[in-house]
């Protein structure tokens, strides 16, 4: 399973690298001790930075959530351009030439890369679960955090088994239909 995980991480190296960078940034902001600052080791920590076990709930949430959010935003931007140009329009080649439109393919790959590497490591997700869903936590916090937590927790598991590559590819295929429905609903023409 680790081999599959590492292969997926290296296939989507840009997203892996950026996710680790954003995680590093979050750890620095929250002054969390980073024990191993390598972004792309061929281990289960590929795409994550190894840090101390976080004991504060807001810090743990921040370290899990902000890298997810940054990667999601950048990934959506890349995927929107790439997916619409490649799948929806079919702009495979530069006009009147036989030169492939590499930029569109790069956008698509970057989008898939970023969206494949959205979620925190499994350890962080479990730590977050323990910090949020314990006896001491206020019920309102539990309820409010539930949707985001569910996404992060399930995503962490999917990413751990390399499934997020498939989900992001599927999402890239579905995105033109989503935009198409949105544009026609908004009557942009």
């Amino acid at each position: 399973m680790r081999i599959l995980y590492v292969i997926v991480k290296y296939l989507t190296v840009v997203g892996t690298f950026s996710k680790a960078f954003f995680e590093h940034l979050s750890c620095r902001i929250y002054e969390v001790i980073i024990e191993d600052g390598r972004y792309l080791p061929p281990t289960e920590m590929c795409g994550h930075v190894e840090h101390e076990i976080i004991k504060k709930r807001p810090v743990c949430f921040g370290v899990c959530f902000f890298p997810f959010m940054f990667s999601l935003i950048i990934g959506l931007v890349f995927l929107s351009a790439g997916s619409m140009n490649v799948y929806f329009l079919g702009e495979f080649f530069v006009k009147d030439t036989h030169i492939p439109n590499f930029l569109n393919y790069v956008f698509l790959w970057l989008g898939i890369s970023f969206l494949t590497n959205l979620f925190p490591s499994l350890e962080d997700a479990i730590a977050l679960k323990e910090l949020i869903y314990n006896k001491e936590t206020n019920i309102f916090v539990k309820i409010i955090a539930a949707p985001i937590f569910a996404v992060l927790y399930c995503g962490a598991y999917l990413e751990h088994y390399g499934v997020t590559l498939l989900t992001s590819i599927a999402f890239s295929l579905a995105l033109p239909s989503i935009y198409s429905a949105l544009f026609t609903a908004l009557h942009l023409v």
Partner: protein
Amino acid sequence: MDENKEKNNANEGLSDEELRLKEEMEELARTFQEELDKAKAEEEKLAAEKQEELDILIQEIEEEKVDEDPENIPEDQLCECCGEKRRGTKDNPDSPYCASCEKGLRHYPFDFLNIILVLIFIGLSLFACTNFAGRIKTYARVAEADKLARNAKRQSAYGAYQSAVQSLKDSSINAEMVYSRQLQNAFAIGSLEDVPSFNTQFNAWELKLPHLRKAYNIFKTYDGMTAARTIGYGYVYEYEDIDDMSKFPYDDIMKKLDAMINAPVDRATIKAQVEEGLQADNTPYGIQADVYDTSMVNFLRMYISAMCEKDIETQKQYLEEIQKTNPEYTWIYSAMLGEIYIKQGKDVTELCNQIRAVDAEDSVADLLTVMQLRTQGKYDESIKLAQTWIDKNDTYIYEFYRQQALCYLSKEEYRQAYGAASSATELNNSKQSYDTLALCCLANKNQTGFDEIKKMYDRYELDFSADVIAYRDGKISLKEILTQGDFDV
């Protein structure tokens, strides 16, 4: 008192203006002195704080220096990071790191190259964002056309695709998937003349790949249809000089057409026709069909049987064959098959639904409904439905007028019938339209109008239909014409 006195003495001999100026200068000097004192005090305070911090730091370093000798520290007590100092800090004695290492790890430094790379990705994402935003209108146009095509509004989709493709051309976007969808829509409404215009839209080698497979199949079908049409009409053209259709070798030609079913295309004949200029060589990308298109062969069979005035069942058989083989080719068979069904008094609802499923905007479905309503005696409904398409100025507007004329005749509203029939003949010169007008003239007792049509028929060596002649001779009533037999003139 003395001070005031001195002041008064010093001020003596000064004018009011000089006095005011002096006071202002003194005020300014006082304010300046106050601000200077304040700044000095703040600086002293800051210096003291700094010194304090420095003292703490020195103290910490000195504290660390106390047990500096790593040889004196047991190995399991050494800092995990530097391995030189004792682990643990004031705040966290269980920490595996010494104070200075922990401080460093909490601010783990970024590699400069990593920062540059991430900035490049962020910059690239901004570029992607502008690319996407700049194309939103184009995406929206294409999405609108797709939606119309998806909802089977083929005619509207046809226009919408043209507008979208123009927008793509203006933006120099080579959108092969959009061209493919545009081609599919054009083919679905039977706009075969558009197919060769897609000759430059794709890369030839790409057409066999799965994403453009539909376009490839259309080109192949188009070639099969064109080939069948070329060969089939070629058989008919051989006998184009025949005036008497009884001399037309119907059976021989039908045999030849039968032999075309699933037969390989006779390329040599087609090539010869192209070289003679009888046929344009417009096969897109040179994609050639292996066999003749069966539906087109069946259409030719129907066409020749109609030309030779064979019975309606024979014609129907070929049209139903097309319907069975390619139900989506409503543009080939629906109008004629529907008309035959109406003449036979058969219900066309199912056929109309089939037409609407392919193209919800195809007026043939409503034209057949108009005919059916008329034959069912629902004249007002028929007239109303026909009027909606007349108002839209549809392609079949003349036929809707003619159907209205027949409805008015059935309702014995002869003046309106004549008006509608006149409109039909103004828009279309078919014999059926003139026969209807002649019937209306007779019903209105407009002998002059009837004679004019007769003169025209004589000029073209045509005869009125049997029903019109029978009505003129008083052998049949209007009611019998419109409610019996084929329900038409």
